[in-house]
């Protein structure tokens, strides 16, 4: 059926998926990951980033299954290791656009150290973190972004740990561009993704997403629609808050950090090569 879609923008969008027996995908009904995947693909198409100029890298988890549906070079690596793997690809083929797509557990917990150091190194990669506040693939255990006191499969009496602010961590580690959006604000999310993809250097978009099957059920929020309504009613644009980093109750969406570009690692290492070669000829 999908093959019969009319040509034009929609056809171009669908061209970027593997339209074989991969679909329907593994994601649950009401899940936000598909929305974020579709938005990412639309952003790439609208920016004119071709399938052969792109490599999508992921780790392990629900979000990390996304590259498997895309018709481009894809790299489904180990749990938490998408960023170092992307670092290797970028350094070997700097002309490729490198996108890392993963979840909060994958990128902020097991891959947290790699995230910090890729930001510090200013690797020219764009990281999309789908934050559903839980380890969904394994059945809803608490993650580093599960708020304190909330219940999870491994926190039946409430989570006693504090949670991470992904965007704050990205800024503190030296990211060039940091933004947040939700799966409810699809047009806004696309804008944030396009800005991140355009920025040279390490850029991060946190995508607040719904997991109705596990997180929504544990917190008694309801189904996917209820969760999207929750995002709609509890999000606030960054321009409307005094200090986006102090906001605890609401989702502050928008560009949270956009600094003047500095050369990415690939460019800096090219200077190292030139220095080494000059020392040779001297």
């Amino acid at each position, binding site marked *: 059926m999908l093959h019969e879609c009319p040509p034009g923008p929609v056809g171009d969008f669908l061209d970027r998926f*593997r339209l074989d027996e*991969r679909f329907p995908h593994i994601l649950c009904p009401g899940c936000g990951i598909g929305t974020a995947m579709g938005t990412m693909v639309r952003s790439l198409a609208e920016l004119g980033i071709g*399938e*052969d*100029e792109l*490599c999508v*890298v992921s780790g*392990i988890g629900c979000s990390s299954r996304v*590259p*498997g549906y895309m*018709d*481009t*070079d*894809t*790299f*489904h*690596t*180990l749990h938490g*290791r998408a960023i*170092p*793997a*992307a*670092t*290797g*690809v*970028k*350094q*070997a*083929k700097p*002309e*490729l656009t490198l996108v890392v797509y993963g979840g909060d557990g994958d990128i902020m917990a097991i891959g947290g*150290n*790699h995230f*910090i*150091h890729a930001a510090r190194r200013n690797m020219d990669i764009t990281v999309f973190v789908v934050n559903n506040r839980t380890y969904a693939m394994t059945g809803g255990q608490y993650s580093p972004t599960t708020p304190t006191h909330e219940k999870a499969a491994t926190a039946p009496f409430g989570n006693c740990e504090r949670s991470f602010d992904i965007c704050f961590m990205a800024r503190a580690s030296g990211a060039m561009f940091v933004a947040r959006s939700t799966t409810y604000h699809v047009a806004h999310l696309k804008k944030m993704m396009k800005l991140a993809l355009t920025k040279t250097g390490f850029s991060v978009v946190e995508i607040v997403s719904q997991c109705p099957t596990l997180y929504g059920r544990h917190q008694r929020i309801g189904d996917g629609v209820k969760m999207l309504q929750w995002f709609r009613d509890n999000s606030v644009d960054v321009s409307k808050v005094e200090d986006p980093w102090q906001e605890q109750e609401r989702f502050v969406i928008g560009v949270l950090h956009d600094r003047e570009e500095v050369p990415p690692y690939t460019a800096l*290492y090219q200077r*190292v*090569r030139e*220095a*080494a*070669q000059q020392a*040779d000829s001297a």
Partner: protein
Amino acid sequence: MPQLLSGNEACAIGALRAGVRFFAGYPITPSTEIAEYFARELPRLGGTYIQMEDEIGSICCMNGATAAGLKAMTATSGPGFSLMQEGIGYSIMAELPCIIVNVMRGGPATGTPTRSSQGDLMQARHGTHGDHPIIALCPWSVRECFDLTVEAVDVSERLRLPVILLMDEVVGHMRETVELPLRVETWKPSNPRRPKEEYFHYGDETNYDSDIASFGEGFRVHLTGLVHRKDGLPTNDPETIRWNMDRLRRKVDDNASWLWDLTYEDLGAETVIVCYGSSARSATEAKNLYQRKTGRSVGIIRLRMVWPFPQQRMVSLLRSARRVIVPEMNMGQMNRSVERAVSPDVPVISVQRYDGEMLTPGEIVDAIGREVPSARPLPEEDLHPGFSIADDEEF
């Protein structure tokens, strides 16, 4: 031109001459000289030295560079080798050729960072989880650090498997005068000569010297650590799982006879020493000492490739041996493999040293001369006479 080089330097030079242009690593004694050499030389050649945040990041970064078409390498020692195990599994599963150098030091844990050991032999074989093929080479001299690194690059590219270079602190830091060839031959894969619609990343059933596409060449390559089909996409289908696992196993099984790499001498002798790495230096000296002292010759087999263990080859080489000596700087890790290659009435004597010092030739000479019972004791038939399932009413 003859040069005075350490084993670590010779290894790095071998890698550069074999075409390695990417190194991702993390400093660790006693392998650091390899990283330092690459940091100095790779940028001159347009390559990359990148120092990662840990060894996990190092091997994953190296896998990324390999997937993008570069010959890549990392070097570490015990603790780092432990951290790299999941990444080695990924290299095997995704069929990414790369070289992992482990300059062995004493373990477990931090162990003895500045002292020598051969304690990671079994870890090299079984370190990463699941059934998997593995190739590990073990040099005994500075020249061989160069030669076996070149061989490692060649074999890994041909079979699309990671190759582990098991050096040890003695071999890595030892200095010898060597003359290294400026040019070396290694096999290099070419791009697939077919349109992308007909290209399957794991489609070559011969599994050997395959044409291969990398990222960024328009072939839409999909790599995953999950069991996958020949197009690289994940699957749970039992038949495909078996196909995938058999494909990996066959990489070593089908090529074992040309992979096996060993040297031997005087195998007509009653006593044969089986050895590898720096212990083989002591063993060779022990053989000479014993011959001078007693006038009786001693056989020696030195494995340059320790994994896969050359089982059938060893059976035929050890056919006339009446006793076998296995000197190792560990608690007897190769011993069991050698026992399996000889008949049960041939004693296999494990000469062990695990105090950070090298085995001395004298210790091995003592073992050659030692009186041992001619047969290994067999387990008694009934080890637990007081217990049998039938007696227990609970069952």
